[in-house]
């Protein structure tokens, strides 16, 4: 068995609906919950691969994944049983807006093995609520923040990466947020801070959101905020320990399963047909277009750092 096949990452969209309407979001929310035949397909795929696996990583994305909590629980329970029976490691994480990440859900999610979370802010209350509103247009900062405080006051064993987006207008607000986070979360090693520039990712408001274009300016602002966070005792998240950051979309053994059963590589280029590389069938078989697949993993053969870090070339990063 080729070593590459001993690990498998599946990124799920249990629903493509979201209860937020963030101003910069690139998703269309036209597809709702994952269909039953897709859920069966996922289980049958795991069943087929379980005997050879050493690691199965399941990532929950969306839409807002917690709108489909029952689907998450169903698949996680199945995967956990498979892991126990076959002896592979099951790891799981979630990218969530955290509005439904309540105390009781936190306990349930951690107990089913979803231990790592990524939650975003776009500033302190004032700025965040300009960019991140609910579907009904109401504010979201306090809902998210209070749920994180609930996690902080628990003894649950998990990790939360707080991702903060830097844009042209929110530096002061981010300093204020970092001060608040330091006051409330300092010393809790389960929390770390990931500072990232806001990007144009294909949403309808891309032309009006205040993106910083200049790479040097971004580096400087991210560095400065990181320094401030460190000074206040917050832990920074370092995403890539390896010399070359490799996107999951460029990895051989990572597949994204959409709510429809379509298989993609990238979780951003959702409406580009190049990214629909196949379909998961109910019996667990994957019908994959090899040419399309090859496009996404071309960096594996060329060794090109940009093709490995972002095969879709949203951004050509300068890797030293």
């Amino acid at each position: 068995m080729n070593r590459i096949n001993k690990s498998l990452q599946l990124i799920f969209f249990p629903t493509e609906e979201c209860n937020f309407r963030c101003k910069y979001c690139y998703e269309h929310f036209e597809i709702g919950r994952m269909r039953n035949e897709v859920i069966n397909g996922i289980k049958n795929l795991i069943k087929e691969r379980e005997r050879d696996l050493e690691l199965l990583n399941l990532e929950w994305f969306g839409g807002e994944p917690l709108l489909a909590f029952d689907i998450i629980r169903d698949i996680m329970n199945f995967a956990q049983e498979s892991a126990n029976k076959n002896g592979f490691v099951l790891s799981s994480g979630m990218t969530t807006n955290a509005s439904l990440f309540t105390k009781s859900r936190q306990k349930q999610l951690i107990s089913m093995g979803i231990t790592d979370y990524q939650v975003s802010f776009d500033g302190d209350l004032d700025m965040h609520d300009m960019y991140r509103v609910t579907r009904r247009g109401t504010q979201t900062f306090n809902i998210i923040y209070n749920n994180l405080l609930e996690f902080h006051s628990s003894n649950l064993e998990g990790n939360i990466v707080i991702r903060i987006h830097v844009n042209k207008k929110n530096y002061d607000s981010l300093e204020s947020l970092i001060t608040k986070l330091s006051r409330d979360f300092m010393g809790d090693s389960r929390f770390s801070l990931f500072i990232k520039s806001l990007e144009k990712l294909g949403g309808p408001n891309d032309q009006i959101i205040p993106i910083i274009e200049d790479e040097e300016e971004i580096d400087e602002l991210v560095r400065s905020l990181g320094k401030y966070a460190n000074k206040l005792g917050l832990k920074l998240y370092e995403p890539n320990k390896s010399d070359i950051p490799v996107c999951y979309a460029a990895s051989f053994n990572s597949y994204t399963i959409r709510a429809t059963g379509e298989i993609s590589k990238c979780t951003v280029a959702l409406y580009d047909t190049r990214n629909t590389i196949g379909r998961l069938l109910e019996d667990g078989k994957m019908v994959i277009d090899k040419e399309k697949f090859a496009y996404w993993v071309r960096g594996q053969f060329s060794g090109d750092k940009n093709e490995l870090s972002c095969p879709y070339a949203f951004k050509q990063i300068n890797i030293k």
Partner: protein
Amino acid sequence: MEIDSYGRIYGVSDDAYNGLLEELLNFGCKVINMIC
């Protein structure tokens, strides 16, 4: 490079740039979407 019906890959080097999954194996779980 070949892919079978269950997404297994054949005919590629074991030294692939395995990115996130390599980190997972070596350092524990990481959440996705850190680059975009």
